[in-house]
């Protein structure tokens, strides 16, 4: 298996070089034949990459411990799907997986590419060819997943096993989703480069890359949310986001890609923001590479344990070359990228997009500055670290500003706000929001006591404002559909196919609003910890946790589990039995994981961790957290996912 996988990768590497050469020839000689050759070469190279990736997965599933990577990341007790996911559990495999995703995207792109378009295609081919070559090079020559034990070494009897913290449902999906998001922007940037070089800077490249940008954005969104959920349910510290460099690395491309999607839409509809769209696309791609560097180089101190290896520096090299070419191309086409908006008023929808873009970029700067500042200071001889409060304090106002713009934009019309919109929509919505805010302050005066809770208050008020605006928009649409006598089916088509970027977009915004509501709850988290004997209770808020029993469950092959059985009472009534536990894994890693128990309601989560125990003395030490509104994060994420699906219906633009 190792030999086969290795061989195919080398073959793919060689074929790819030829594909790039033919693409360049095709441009020089203006030959369609060469384009075809280049296309089939890159297709077969991508195909070979897939065969060798599947070979590695096969090696995992069949416990082929002749391969070092397989022996280090799984063992005979690892479950089937976790064996498959072990492919992306370690560095070498995850880079191969990344390469395979890029190869898959290239296959899909070429198979769905419009037959008539031949001008941008060769440029896309060489650019994607080079990107793929870069990854293949790293896989083959710096971190090879097919490396086998040498003949001198004894073959291991069993593998080391997969880190138990990675053996969870969200870990199956979180890394691949982020990779899919990262890689998708490689395709978008290929179109940007092709457009810039061939001077085809109207909407054509945006239309062709629209779904790629959307799908990447969606994957990045889901990847970040699942990552947060993994941290929440798996790490047992009651929180979900710690502003760790690795989290930040996947968060900043999400910010710029969100701005990109909006700018691209604006360019498509209004023909403006050409520079913005291109620059945001480039920055997003650059940030995905920077993120890879951050997570792979050990350059930045992080809680996440990644290998400290030299491959990070390849990514920095790649980033520098990419940035230089990008800046050069931008300057070269600066004149052609000029657009005129002709605004009649400062309060126009265009300007709300403009300021949203700025806010997203400022947000990226805030996060990057916080993440990189320990290294900046190190260069000047001062060793520092940044508390995560920095991020909360500085990023929150930016987030709130974006939330405000999200509500305002629909009430502003293009070019200027109309009197009608101002009087009938904005003014009443504002008034209602202010009344709502005052009501909240009267009901919960503690909201204005701390800075963090004032941020929460603003988040809730602005969320309310957004909900009113979205309701307006939909009620207007329903009235219109009724007046025009649309059937139910046609109404759905009108809303979510013909006008999808508007109405599906509002639903995505609604999901975002829910996430803000969930975030607002974090200012009011409380926690309590206590040592308990049997039948003693921990009281927190209106909950009472009564310790009933502690027992050992050793029925699983791969782990022993210690359970604490706790009866949960609310206002004196028994509502549930919680079973927080600890898992002790038997594999060579011998990991321990704390499995939390969560009682979720729409208003709050009660989150219980078994922190310590003495099974002979029947003692446990538990910690309980009350996390208000947190469930809205996951609901919001789900709504974003569902409601962005209609966006993929492509309107028929003329190309």
């Amino acid at each position, binding site marked *: 298996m190792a030999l086969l996988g290795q061989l195919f990768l080398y073959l793919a590497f060689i074929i790819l070089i030829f594909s790039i050469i033919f693409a360049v020839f095709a441009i020089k000689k203006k030959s369609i034949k060469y384009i075809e050759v280049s296309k089939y070469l890159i297709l077969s190279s991508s195909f070979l990459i897939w065969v060798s990736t599947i070979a590695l997965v096969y090696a995992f599933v069949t416990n082929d411990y002749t391969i070092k990577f397989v022996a280090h990341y799984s063992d005979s007790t690892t479950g089937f799907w976790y064996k498959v996911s072990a492919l992306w559990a370690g560095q070498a495999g995850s880079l191969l997986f990344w390469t395979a995703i890029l190869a898959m995207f290239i296959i899909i792109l070429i198979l769905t590419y419009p037959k008539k378009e031949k001008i941008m295609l060769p440029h896309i081919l060489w650019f994607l060819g080079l990107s793929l070559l870069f990854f293949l090079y790293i896989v083959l020559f710096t971190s090879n997943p097919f490396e086998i034990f040498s003949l001198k070494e004894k073959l291991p009897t069993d593998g080391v096993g997969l880190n138990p913290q990675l053996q969870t449902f969200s870990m199956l999906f979180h890394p691949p989703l982020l990779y899919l998001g990262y890689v998708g922007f490689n395709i978008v940037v290929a179109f940007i480069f092709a457009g810039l070089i061939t001077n085809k800077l109207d909407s054509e490249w945006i239309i062709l890359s629209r779904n790629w940008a959307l799908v990447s954005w969606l994957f990045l969104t889901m990847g970040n949310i699942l990552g947060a959920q993994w941290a929440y349910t798996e790490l047992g510290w009651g929180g979900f986001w710690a502003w760790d460099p690795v989290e930040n690395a996947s968060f900043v491309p999400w910010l710029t890609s969100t701005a990109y999607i909006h700018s691209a839409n604006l360019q498509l509809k209004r023909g403006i923001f050409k520079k913005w769209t291109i620059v945001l696309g480039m920055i997003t791609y650059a940030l995905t590479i920077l993120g890879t560097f951050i997570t792979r180089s050990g350059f930045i101190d992080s809680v996440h344990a990644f*290998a400290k290896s030299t491959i990070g520096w390849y990514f920095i090299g790649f980033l520098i070359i990419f940035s230089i070419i990008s800046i050069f191309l931008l300057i070269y086409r600066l004149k052609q990228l000029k657009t005129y908006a002709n605004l009649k008023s*400062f309060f126009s929808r265009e300007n709300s997009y403009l300021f949203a873009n700025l806010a997203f970029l400022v947000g990226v700067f805030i996060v990057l500055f916080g993440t990189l500042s320990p290294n900046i200071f190190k260069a000047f001889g001062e060793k520092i670290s940044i508390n995560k409060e920095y991020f909360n304090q500085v990023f929150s*106002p930016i987030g709130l500003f974006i939330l405000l713009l999200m509500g305002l934009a629909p009430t502003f019309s293009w070019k200027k706000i109309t009197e009608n919109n101002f009087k009938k929509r904005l003014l009443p919505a504002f008034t209602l929001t202010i009344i709502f805010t005052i009501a909240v302050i009267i009901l919960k005066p503690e909201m204005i006591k701390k800075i963090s809770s004032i941020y929460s208050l603003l988040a809730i008020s602005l969320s309310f404002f957004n909900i009113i605006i979205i309701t307006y928009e939909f009620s207007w649409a329903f009235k219109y559909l009724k007046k025009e006598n649309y059937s139910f089916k046609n109404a759905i088509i009108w809303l979510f196919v013909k006008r999808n970027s508007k109405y599906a977009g509002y639903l995505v915004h609604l999901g975002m609003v829910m996430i803000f509501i969930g975030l607002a709850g974090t200012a009011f988290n409380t926690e309590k910890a206590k040592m308990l004997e049997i039948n003693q209770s921990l009281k927190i808020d209106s909950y009472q946790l009564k310790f009933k029993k502690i027992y050992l469950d050793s029925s699983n092959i791969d782990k022993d589990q210690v359970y604490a059985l706790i009866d949960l009472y609310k206002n004196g009534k028994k509502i549930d039995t919680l079973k927080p536990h600890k898992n002790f894994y038997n594999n*060579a890693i011998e990991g321990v994981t704390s499995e939390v128990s969560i009682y979720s309601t729409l208003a709050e989560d009660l989150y219980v961790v078994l922190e310590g125990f003495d099974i002979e003395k029947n003692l446990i030490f538990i910690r309980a957290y009350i996390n208000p509104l947190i469930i809205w994060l996951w609901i919001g994420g789900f709504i974003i996912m569902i409601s962005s699906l209609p966006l993929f219906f492509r309107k028929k633009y003329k190309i």
Partner: protein
Amino acid sequence: MNKKIVIAIILMLATVGYLISASFVNNKISYLSINDLKASPSSFIGKEIKITGKVLNDKLEEKLTSEGKVYKFKIKDKLIKKDPAKITILYTGVLPDSFQKDADVVCTGELNKNGEFVASSIISKCPSKYESQGDEHPDEIKIKNTDKK
């Protein structure tokens, strides 16, 4: 560009600039190796700092109190191989799941007058267990772990 837009952008950037600088100063804390700390301990007493090192102990001293478990253990400087500086850590609370001998830990807290470090939070990084073991033979990893028991 419109004048109003320019003014608004300047206002926005000024606000953000102010927020960053104000918050940065408040949230910047010293992050030291044990050697750095031992070089001039008096200048850090009573200040919140972060330190990083490797866990020395096989067995921890621990006491279960109503506040939770109180741990006492030593960590050593992780960069200096020969005769590294050591420090005693006092910690009440729960150690991370991956805490063990040789784990890299980051402790936040302050130095007390006895030269012990009172930690308010401990993060364990455990790279030795998962990634950098690449060169070791899986059988040896197992033997080592069995020895530890």
